[in-house]
């Protein structure tokens, strides 16, 4: 494997057979509780009317966004976007506010309703298997996939591979690599033969949502200062105006008195 500058996954929906080996592998590798999962199988299931049928399946977990909304929403900095790709979560900092759950456009972070604040972890999501990828192994879900529907590698190379696959079979694939640009790019890339919306993926702009929100947020203080200055000015102006009106009235009163 070539050196990985940016860890990423490539999922090819045309190859996925919905066998769920990835889900079991993840549960074992990460010792996930029996009533929880970090990988989901989504998608359309069977569509159409017998015998004209179509089936789609998508396996997904954390998209490891380049501009993670969870991180942006987190008030205590429990999320980190690691330089080489993974979005990590630190349960020790988490206060259980669940802002990340609302912020994530993919519905990934899951809240552990069974545990109180004393017990620690509140949110459960894919970790990118750091214990494996930094020891020369593929993530557990990728390693076991019997049909290579899930692949792992450097993001740029996987994007190149995805486009090559589309070019080789333009009749088979939708000409788009989901995650290349969506939400500013994700580290989980998807190829599909059916519309991405049918796989349950949101239609997201290329500009990350949080880039807009963060820009707005960045402007808060200057804006507040500026607005304060304006208001001060207005207040001063109003005061001046009132003063003038009062002076006028006083003059008029005086004039009346003179008459």
């Amino acid at each position, binding site marked *: 494997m070539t050196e990985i500058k940016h860890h990423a996954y490539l999922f090819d929906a*045309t*190859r996925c*057979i*919905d*066998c*769920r*080996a990835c*889900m*079991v*592998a993840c*549960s*074992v*590798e990460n*010792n996930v509780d*029996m009533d929880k*999962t970090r990988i989901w199988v989504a998608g359309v299931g*069977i569509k*159409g*009317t*017998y*015998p004209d*049928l*179509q*089936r789609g399946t998508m396996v997904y977990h954390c998209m490891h966004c380049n501009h993670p909304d969870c991180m942006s929403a987190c008030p205590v900095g429990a999320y*980190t976007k*690691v330089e080489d790709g*993974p979005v*990590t979560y*630190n*349960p*020790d900092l988490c206060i259980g506010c669940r802002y990340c759950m609302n912020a994530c456009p993919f519905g990934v972070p899951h809240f552990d309703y069974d545990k109180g604040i004393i017990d*620690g972890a509140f949110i459960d999501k894919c970790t990118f298997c*750091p214990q494996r990828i930094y020891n020369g*192994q593929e993530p*557990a879900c990728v*390693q*076991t*996939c*019997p*049909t*290579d*529907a899930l692949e792992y590698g450097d993001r740029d190379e996987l994007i190149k591979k995805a486009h090559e696959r589309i070019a080789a*079979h333009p009749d088979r694939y939708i000409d788009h690599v989901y995650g290349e640009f969506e939400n500013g790019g994700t580290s989980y890339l998807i190829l599909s033969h059916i519309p991405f919306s049918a796989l349950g993926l949101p239609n997201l702009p290329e500009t990350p949502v949080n880039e807009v929100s963060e820009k707005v947020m960045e402007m808060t203080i200057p804006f507040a200062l500026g607005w304060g200055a304006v208001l001060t000015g207005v207040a001063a102006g109003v005061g001046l105006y009132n003063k003038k009106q009062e002076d006028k009235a006083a003059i008029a009163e005086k004039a009346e008195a003179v008459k």
Partner: protein
Amino acid sequence: MTKTISRRDFLKLGAASVGALAMGQMLPPKVAQAARAAGTINAEGDGFVHSMCEMCVWRCGLIAKVVDGRVVKLDGNPEHPHSRGNLCPRGQSGLMNTYDPDRVRTPLIRVGKRGEGKFRQASWDEALDLVASKMTAIKNKYGAEAMVFSSTHNLSQPLFENLLYAFGSPNYGTQRSLCFNAMIVANTMTYGMEEPARIYDDKLKYILLTGRNLLEAISTSETHDLIMAIDRGAKVVYLDPRYTKTASKATEWLPIKPGNDLAFHLALLNVIIGEKLYNRSFVEKNTIGFDELKKEVSRYTPEWAAPLTGIPAETIARIAHEFADAAPHALAHNGWRTSNFVNSFHTQRAITILNALMGNWDVVLTEAGGEESGTLGAPAQPAYPRISALRLDGVPWKYPVVPFKIGVFQELRDNIVSGEPYQAHGWFISRQNPIMSLPDRGKTLKAFGKLDFIVTVDIVLNDTAWFSDVVLPEASYLERYDPLMPMGDKVFLRQPVIEPQGEAKSALWIYKQLGARLGLGDYFQYTDEEDYLRQQLAPLGVSLEDVKAKGYAEAPETAHSGESSEKTWNTPSGKIELFSDTLAKVGFSGVPTWDEPPQPDEGQFFLLTGKIATSTQFGTQNNQLLHKYSEEPRLWMNAQTAAELGLATDDWVEVTSEVGQIHTQLLATQAIRPDCVYMTPGYGHLSKGLKTAYGVGANDSAVHVTYTDPISGGQALSQTFVTVKKA
């Protein structure tokens, strides 16, 4: 990334070091000693051990990660040709079979009535003495043939066979007649081999799958091969009354009417022979009986097959042309079982012959390496005693062409009930679950009622163990050695990754102990499992320690038979037999011939069963990880049909066949023919000793009717017709 250690991590570290301290004060257990000697596990009990999966019979290579003497993760072994680094969901979940809280940890002796589930714990000595004394008493009173033995396709099978043949019983039950007898007998009658290997190379252009749901009935490497062939653009035509996950990836799905796959294939042969689309030079050089075949199939036109199969004549003719155009890079996959009817032998023969006519030998089909290697050693042993008693399963007196090693399991059960030609009195069952595997569960329970003594070897209280008199706890596949498995130019090892749970023991140990008590010690001349393996490895000049470290040893491959032009076949004629004189001599048609399958009555449905990726037969439903990721089993019914009957998804329905009735929930779906219903087999367990599986789903064996293909002895598993109404 920065790593901070939380309070919880500290607690974990504390617990771990206390554990390590306690362990350190004891002598290291046997597995750990051996693993350290082989260099796979360090002094702390951590490491990676190479072994082999047993969540199905495909046997992928695995690498087990062990921490503190516990297996925490299984990965596929990249060097093993069956796994290539991958494991399916069952393989991934394997450690949960071993750590199943319902494991049987000591030998058990029944104290209540059969089926009450009341057992007491016993020592190995007591249990083995009891089993040996009961078996000896049956042998002395009724003859050795009154003991029935059954076990399913596994690596310790040679030692199981030693036990039964040395004991002197001809009664050997395998599961094969419930699975793929038709395929094996058809290949044997045609090519002189059980099952050729399939080659999925870059040139493969066309794949015809007759009910082979390879994307749900996963054989890891072959499933991968099929997906990659599709990826490269190979055309896949898939016949199945259900829209399975394989159907969804196929180029063309043909929802054929059950029982009529034979008509489809006869029509393909009709077009290919009638229009001379076959490989003439290959056929002339390598086959016999072409003229008889030509004459027979001349009446099976696509127009004739269309109303039977529900597939238009022009589609059948087109597929015949496409297949011939793609040949020899065209594969007609035998499947393991098609829609299984009493005519399935002829279906399998027709598929086999289709390949032969295309001359695709050594292109897409080739001789498979056997599971027995001539290069391995074995302990010395005397010849078996001569056995003159008839077999209860009708081989060969009722089923003349069924091989002895395969047998007709359902017939064996039927003759335990009938007492013909003699009454059986005992049943020794190892790693098999006939109460769930055989059709007509009620009849199997009746057979149990006829027996004086039943003993089962298993890792959990499966349904069969639940109804047994003695249960002997076997070590799981992660806890034991098995005999070596040859594959290609290597022999692979299954070795213990962890210590057995409780007092569980390997089959090699159990059979040897029992053999000694039965006076058959000469058939088990090894001191322990490692000694057995050393004797196997002796001719290779490889040490067991080396094999343990790598998980395999190099072994010269059995010589391949070479170019097809000079090839001779292991058949009576030495050729590929399109016409089989062997079949003709015993009164069967020597060429594939039409045999009209029975039809359901008005208001009845074909009952179909078929595999899913997250279970193997009836042996994995208690695995908590597979349970976690499996869908609730329900009865599939075509949505339109369900609406007409006033039924909706999740309604409870009563499913009735001529032998039984079950209650289950319905799934109204577009993915099935309107005249069929489907249920996932292996659910609806009777044993309350399976706490995860008990109460989940309904049992297919309770409604399956026993019908046997008279030629291959295969159970006609799709020939059960049921009515469905609201419960």
